[in-house]
């Protein structure tokens, strides 16, 4: 079976499209963040994200976020198949706008915390976590 130059190029493009496809299924990081902020500007600072520099096991990475004056904090893992991780909504009896949990990271990546402040503005903090063993199976 012979391929003309045109067919070969078409096949190549098809292969590229197929290999890119899986990453298109889940909403991108920008879309997830826009869904939380409603497209508002996000300033740096005002929120503290504590994460380990190196996580040996991506299945349980301990993180802590704190943002005094926030009403909600969202965590986004930019390199995960599904970037959204968790959203903390603080109620009237929350003594501090901080929380700690354990998350899964697929690989070395930026973890972003975005806080919605009481006045409606948004702030963010980013932390790079190096992951030795990814936490998404597969």
């Amino acid at each position, binding site marked *: 079976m012979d391929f003309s130059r045109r067919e070969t190029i078409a096949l190549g493009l098809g292969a590229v499209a197929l290999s890119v496809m899986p990453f298109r299924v889940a909403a991108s990081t920008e879309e997830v963040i826009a869904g939380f902020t409603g497209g508002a500007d996000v300033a740096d600072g005002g929120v503290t994200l504590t994460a380990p520099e190196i996580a040996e096991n991506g299945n349980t990475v301990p993180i802590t976020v704190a943002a005094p004056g926030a009403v909600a904090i969202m965590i986004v893992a930019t390199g995960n198949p599904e970037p959204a991780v968790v959203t903390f909504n603080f109620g009237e*009896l929350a003594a*501090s706008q901080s929380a*700690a*949990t354990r*998350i*899964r990271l697929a690989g070395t990546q930026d973890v972003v915390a975005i806080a919605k402040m009481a006045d409606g503005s948004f702030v963010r903090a980013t932390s790079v976590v190096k992951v030795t063993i990814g936490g998404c199976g*597969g």
Partner: protein
Amino acid sequence: MASGVKPRVKVPKSAAAGSAITIKTLISHKMESGQRKDKEGNLIPRSIINRFTCTFNGKSVIDIKMEPAISTNPYFQFDATVPEAGDFVFTWYDDDGSVYDAKKSVAIG
């Protein structure tokens, strides 16, 4: 209902009125992410707890929306204000519709 789900909560038995206390919660749950594959290469369907709430005498302390990127046996630590004696109610909502809850009383003193 996922089998073997057991909520565990750590709350001080008593606190000074108006003071802040730290609460730790853990619930045993496999939190299947929907990304893993079984031996035959089929995707294992997602099965996670997608929401956790904590209230004190009916007032909200924290309401957490969870995604598959939360680790197995979800753990949370947060701070709550105790204005008077009463009960903390913790509720977990499973993808399959199950609801798990735990209740802890706090005295003033």
